[in-house]
């Protein structure tokens, strides 16, 4: 009996994990454009993100944050 309750708890937790993954994917814009990423994968080693230095990458993160602020 109690085993089943534990298992139900586990299955719900797992399902909630997938739900939050879905929510994250929607929020981060993965459902906004479903075509262009399929082209980006074709770019070889000299792709858009490789040439960016550390500081630039940090800047990008701050950009994302301010973008979020902007959306809210």
């Amino acid at each position: 009996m109690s085993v089943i309750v534990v298992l139900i708890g586990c299955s719900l937790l797992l399902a909630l994990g997938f739900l939050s993954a879905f929510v994250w994917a929607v929020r981060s814009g993965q459902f906004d454009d479903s075509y262009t990423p399929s082209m980006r994968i074709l770019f070889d080693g000299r792709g858009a993100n490789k040439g960016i230095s550390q500081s630039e990458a940090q800047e990008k993160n701050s950009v994302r944050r301010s973008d979020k602020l902007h959306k809210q």
Partner: protein
Amino acid sequence: MNSPATSSVAAKEQCAHCGLDCPDNGIALDGAAFCCEGCRIVYQMLAENDLDSYYCAAPTDGSPGNRAAAEIDPGDFDYLEDESLLARLLDFRSDTLAIARLNIPGIHCASCVWLLENLHKLDPGVLQSEVNFMRKELLLRFDPRRSSLRAVVELLHKIAYPPDIRLAAARSAEPPKTPRIEWLRLGVAGFCFGNIMLFSFPEYLAGAQGLSGEFGQLFAWLNLALSLPVLLFSAAPFFRSALTGLRGGNVNIDVPIALGIVVLFLRSLVDIAVLGAPGFLDSMAALVFLLLLGRMFQRKTYDRLAFDRDYAAYFPLSVRIETTEGRTTTRSLDQLEVGDIIVVRNGELIPADALLLSDSAALDYSFVTGESAAQHSAKNDLVYAGGRLTGSPARFQTIKPVSQSYLTDLWNNGIFADEKHAGFSDLTNRFSKYFTFGVVVVAAAAGLYWALAAGDWSAAADAVTASLIVACPCALALAAPFTFGTSLGLLARRGLYVKNSETLELLAATSAIVFDKTGTLTSAEPAQLRYHGLECTVQEAAMTLNTAQASNHPLSRGIVSVLREQVDADDLSAVGDAIIDEVAGKGLRADFYSGHQVLIGAAEWLREQGADMSGELPTRESAAHIAVDGRYMGAFVQKNYLRRGIRAMLEKLRGAFNIYLLSGDTPQQEADFVNMLSGAFGGKQHLRFGRSPQDKLEFLDELERGGATTLMLGDGLNDAGALRRSTVGVAVVENNAAFTPASDAILEARALAGLPQFLQYARRGLGIVKLSILLSLLYNVVGLTLAVQGLLSPLVSAVLMPLSSITVIVFSTLSARLLAPREVKQ
């Protein structure tokens, strides 16, 4: 990188940048050939910045580059410094970050995406650039301290990806993509539905005796918890829509749906909390999930298309103004004042009614009036907004503000203020009124019977709630979305992009069809001309070319493009100058100083001018006859004057609809056209020439008042009023990236001949929806029969309701596919 060693290219090579054939005087650099200086500059710039893998980034045929545009002047983008304009163009702005969305029509392959996403290498001020390929849009984030919108736009021009900058007001009218919240609603509903089903399954399997107490209660309470997000979050749009409908005194389809969902939840709450029964939450979650799925399916967005556009979207953002000191600068269009002197270049629009200050100018009003011939204006002539300048730049002085000019006048008409189709309610919603009424009556009758006749109050409550639950018109609400959603998808693949399912339903009711001529039935581009007649000498050809160059008539332009390939510059200059007269609507007469004479024009006119017409060719299509020194040579015949398959299409349509033609051209200009098509239209009275944009609007108004459901097909601004006034306005475009007037549907010109099939398919679609509604009603009858007797168990409900929905989905989707005419299916 070596210094550019420029030399001439010998053989016909392909340009290393844009892939076009190089002309004989092309340019070479480091073993690569270029068609023009512009392409070479782009190539060199990319090479110097280590971005040359642009040319091998995509496995496409040929080279990815766009042909480099004309060079830009330093002052061309002055207006992008304007603060008030920047505020409207930028999506976001702070001291360290600015975000802009730029529409770049030139995006066409993976290389474009690669290069544009590497903009930060060309301009360090760019923080990030991201392409949305389907929307042909660049999301740009830059640091305003290190770069500016102007700098980036100039850079984009330099690498041959000029952005099409329009005001945000025009852009925000575009249909929104599926908003993120819709995905979340669907996802949450799906999640809850799946888990509720998991906890409900033991109950189904346990059969009549039910689960043992502990488990039954545990699962029921878990279901209740899982159903809350469905009720409060996922189902919210249905409640909102039902409330709006009721407030407006309108019982739309969401009213019975919302009622069903609420009753489902309340009944389940009482069952679980008070009676210890399992409840109907599985049915509720399934219902909301399927309904949301239907909404998603119906929401067709065409990334590149915009259906709602007003006149502001047609104008450029900026105008070139000559200041009092004689300098030219650019200013945003809002700041254009009466009396300003503006400079307009080849291909640009006149933004406001103005006086011509230069000696002469040729203006093409085809977009505004539908008249295909260019008009020549002389100094101090009044020119109207919307005319497109062809030829050398000219100066104008504005005499009216933009908002009161000729072009914008049309938009002051009342019909542009009203929302189109405001009073229209679609089949499902019309049906829903009777349906809701019927269900309430049945539920009340069942309740009264149990309460009064049988005296069993709990059975009465059971019967009433069960009736409302089982009658929840889930399947009914899904019939139209899935049928029309499938149809919209199939039609879009064939080149007809219909705005929404409502429009498709209206399309099925069409009784009269009105065509615009220029650009709709006929091709907007000058068609390829073919010469029939006597062989002519190089000198004769050169004289004809010289003569034709003086005119802007479409046929003359066609002749020029044919002859230019056969006559080289030396031969052309050898024939010398001529006095050239153009008689509007008749032809051209050139008297060369060398004594020769060339006549180009209508056969009748050539005879009047004294040419010997003994060898005249009989021509049915538009033709320009040629006579040199009084001797008839032959004619340039315009092939493909009409688009392909037009005559057959008109013949097919004439049987079922009233068809009309509206044209801005005069009947004289169109004599050939009348002869050719008056039969197909069913008589001359169906062809109306010389119609202004206002006349077109009024003609449609007259038809609509006469009770007709009209379908208008047009292409230009001159049709904007008629497109708006018609029940369904269809904009015909050469390619789907083109700019179209506001419309309900967009049709690619190549698919125009398929119109009869499209209309037939729309009617079949409506039939399928009716059948699906009937099918869902059958299920409802079965369910109600059980419900009024108090026999509806949660298990029966959980099987019956999704089953009816899925039957309807499968039936409507499959039949919408199978019943598509062959032409639509391909």
